């Protein structure tokens, strides 16, 4: 097995340009693998000069082959790059990138509640939305918009959630204080949901919608209000 082909396969599969040092590290790691064969072991201590010579040979071969890509060394790192004349089609390819599916309305609502009320437990989100949010929480967490940020100081110490930096980027916000109409949603008082252990058997049969309606009394506590709504004005 020729060194240059191993290098070629590495550069062809790599997601970023690789320096000679990074390539050398790959050979060392491959030689140390449990199932390393004789070839892998023989290349454990390949020299930088050998690597450079093989890379240069490879670059010449690809230059001669005159295909739509070539091997380039930029700032000491090697990478296969496409030839510039194919840019019109590559631009069209990039433009066609499939967008991630839109966030559903339930996902947006859940996101909004978390954004305004963080840190917040899952149970509290459910109290406000009035429905189970397991699936929706999973979606927005997978999309990297929400993450666990700590634990609530209540029975069971459930995790609390907050929005991520990606959330801010996504919506073009400088910070959470940029969220529009923040005061009002922050003000809605939500009764702490009962800890699972203390749930009465009778409560379990109550439809979730009703549960939420009953408990979600809007108790506006004066001292929590940073600003009065326009009502007074």
């Amino acid at each position: 097995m020729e060194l240059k082909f191993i290098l070629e396969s590495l550069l062809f599969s790599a997601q970023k340009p690789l320096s000679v040092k990074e390539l050398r590290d790959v050979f060392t790691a491959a030689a140390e693998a449990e199932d390393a064969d004789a070839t892998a072991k023989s290349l454990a201590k390949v020299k930088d000069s050998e690597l450079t010579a093989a890379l240069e040979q490879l670059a010449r071969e690809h230059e001669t082959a005159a295909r739509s890509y070539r091997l380039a060394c930029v700032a000491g790192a090697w990478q296969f790059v496409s030839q510039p004349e194919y840019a019109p089609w590559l631009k069209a390819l990039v433009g066609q990138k499939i967008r991630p599916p839109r966030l559903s309305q339930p996902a947006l609502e859940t996101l909004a509640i978390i954004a305004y009320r963080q840190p917040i437990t899952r149970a509290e989100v459910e109290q406000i939305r009035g429905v189970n949010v397991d699936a929706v929480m999973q979606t927005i967490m997978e999309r990297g918009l929400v993450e666990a940020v700590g634990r609530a100081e209540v029975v069971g110490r459930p995790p609390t959630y907050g929005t991520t930096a990606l959330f801010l980027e996504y919506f073009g916000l400088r910070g959470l204080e940029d969220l529009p109409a923040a005061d009002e949603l922050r003000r809605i008082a939500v009764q702490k949901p009962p800890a699972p252990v203390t749930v009465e058997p009778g409560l379990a049969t109550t439809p979730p919608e009703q549960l939420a309606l009953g408990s979600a009394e809007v108790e506006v506590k004066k001292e929590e209000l940073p600003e009065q709504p326009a009502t007074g004005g």
Partner: protein
Amino acid sequence: MPEYKVQFEVFEGPLDLLLYLIKKEEVDIYQVNLTKLATQFIEYIDLMRQFDLEIAGEFLVMASTLMYIKSRELLPVDQQVAVEGEEEGEDPRWELIRQLVEYKKFKDAATQLQSLEARQENVFPRLPGKLEFESTAPPPKPDVSIFDLLNAVNNVLRRFEKRDDAREIFEDKWTVSEKVEFILKVIAERGSVRFADLFESAASRSEVVCTFLALLELIRLKQLICAQGAEFGQIEIRRAENAAPAPGTPVSDPAPGDVAPEPVLNQAPETSGAAEPPRQS
């Protein structure tokens, strides 16, 4: 003897065991001596019993088939033909051989699939880094905008209001028309404005809704455009390039060919089901 026990556990079924026995004999399936095969098969079943191994029903069915074949062979040839209406094609010997040949081919195919499976583990697709074009149009906008988020907030708020009808949380002092003027004034002064800035001073839900509706309306009337420079950048609002000049008084001076904005402003915007109409009478 112990080697048998090991073997029993790897046989997938009676056909597998038969193929193993044939392989041991080093003969072609077509050449196999079925009587001998039957005897060996039944010996194995018997051994399985001795080892208290659970014997699957399929093995017993095969044993019975083999016993039948074997017993037939023991009859003198002139008596063999008279088996209850049996046609030539249904000779159990042919049927068994056909089954074995077929199964053997699929077993071989499975082995080939296995090597393909192992091969695929070592095949790495080229996964290039993302292409970047500096001078090109902005990449696709995010699939969701702050409009959607606002709308979601409003939905939540609306539900809360329904839950507590007694609570009248706001009294409108804003109208959409006022907000249209406000936005146009800001744009006229600054050239462009960031989306978030428009809402910076909003003190109530009704004000947010009015600002939002005004914005939607102006976009719909092609007075303004929303742009996002970078993929996750700020949403910037600026005057549409081909918008009719409407300095300060857009409501009474619609662009030629455009819908007259004034009556429209009192309706729910058609561009989006995103927001409810302003809560004013």
